[in-house]
């Protein structure tokens, strides 16, 4: 996973980026709610919403091709669940509308995350009185996701380069081993982080 995947465009400058985070979150939630509340019979309104979202995307000066690519990559999430709706009378139409609704919602959240740095979202959470322990966990998790994903990748590759048997059971055991060792390393890393926090005066 490439390091700039997260937060890739959230620090650009545009009218949308400059909107305060809490407002963007509120608008995103409202848009999602509206999208859900549009009855299947008024599908034309989906088009209006789509236009609105595209307008926001343009205003936010986000690279549209990249955005579209990301959206396309996320579609399988929507398609997968929507597929189940096909198995009923009138399924085809329901399926299309579900896909449209799901895609609009995906687009909304994508716009939100691409124009709002994560630490600002955490600040909003803090104001909303989300439990402090959860906010600390989210901050730490955000910081260390890539470190650990990279570590897991390196451990897997190292393991694979020493493995000559390619049968499934061996691969499963190897992966299980990597995950287990990754956890052990994570506990050691957590101890070092605790030491680093204390060294800078962390008050508990």
């Amino acid at each position, binding site marked *: 996973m490439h*390091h*700039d995947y*997260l*937060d890739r465009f959230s*620090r650009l400058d545009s009218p949308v980026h400059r909107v305060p985070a809490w407002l963007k979150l509120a608008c995103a939630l409202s848009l999602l709610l509206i999208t859900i509340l549009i009855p299947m019979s008024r599908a034309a309104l989906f088009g209006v919403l789509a236009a609105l979202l595209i307008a926001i995307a343009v205003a936010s000066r986000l690279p549209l091709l990249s955005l579209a690519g990301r959206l396309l990559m996320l579609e399988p999430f929507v398609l997968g669940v929507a597929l189940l709706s096909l198995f009923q009378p009138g399924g085809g139409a329901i399926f299309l509308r579900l896909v449209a609704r799901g895609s609009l919602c995906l687009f909304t959240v994508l716009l939100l995350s691409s124009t709002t*740095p*994560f*630490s600002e979202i*955490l600040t909003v959470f803090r104001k909303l009185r989300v439990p402090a322990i959860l906010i600390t966990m989210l*901050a*730490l998790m*955000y*910081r*260390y996701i*890539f*470190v650990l994903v990279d570590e897991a990748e390196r451990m897997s590759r190292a393991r694979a380069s020493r493995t000559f048997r390619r049968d499934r059971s061996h691969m499963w055991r190897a992966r299980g081993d990597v995950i287990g060792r990754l956890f052990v390393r994570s506990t050691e*890393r957590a101890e*070092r*982080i605790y*030491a*680093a*926090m*204390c*060294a*800078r*005066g*962390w*008050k508990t």
Partner: protein
Amino acid sequence: MNAFEVSGLSFRYADRDGALSDVSFTVEEGECLGVIGPNGAGKSTLLMHLNGLLPEKPGDRSPIRVFGEPIRDDNLDRVRREVGLLFQNPDDQIFCPTVFEDVAFGPKQFGSSGGDLRGIVDRALAQVGLVGYGNRSPHHLSHGEKRRVSIAGLLACAPRVLLLDEPTSDLDPRGRRELKALLRDLPITKVIASHDLEMIVELCPRVLILDEGRLVREGPTLELLNDEALMLIHGLERPHVLQHPHAHDRPHG
């Protein structure tokens, strides 16, 4: 005044190997002291004692005096503010989601806030040559940049001493040059534990040699590091810069 007075420091980890045995030395204020030795000698353990991280409960008979006062439970705060510790792995040290928040962490713990805090962070980042990096996410930075952010985080606390654990490890030649220049220009007391003997020769007039938890020698860097036999006995070697001195490499300039 002496920055540190250590008399008879001994320590054993409860759950791992490694120990310190009867270590005694002093560090003058303003000096740059090198700590060298093979892996497992106890260099990191020693540094962690100097800023009160170890032992976990200092008790009231600490063998370490920091600027004249022994380390106790009730002055740990002051010790940690005055003595900054740079960890070997910057990924462990930078634990906040953005550079600004991380550099601000220390000063915030010690009571700064608002406009003051902003000023402190900006000055610290400027000192390490990372102006404008406040909004960046740590996982986007290069290794050298992460090192410098870690140092900024320590400088923001306005310490009187910097303890550095392998500061040039994992750095490319440019990163190493920049770090050495940065350290050379910092006027505060420094204790540098490192395998980078060339850097020790350049920055530290005096060294301690640790081996298996014991302080085996202390003295002028040039004298000790030129002693080939001594170096080899303790798992080190005479640095090339002393074997083939270059005109532009001036030791501790």
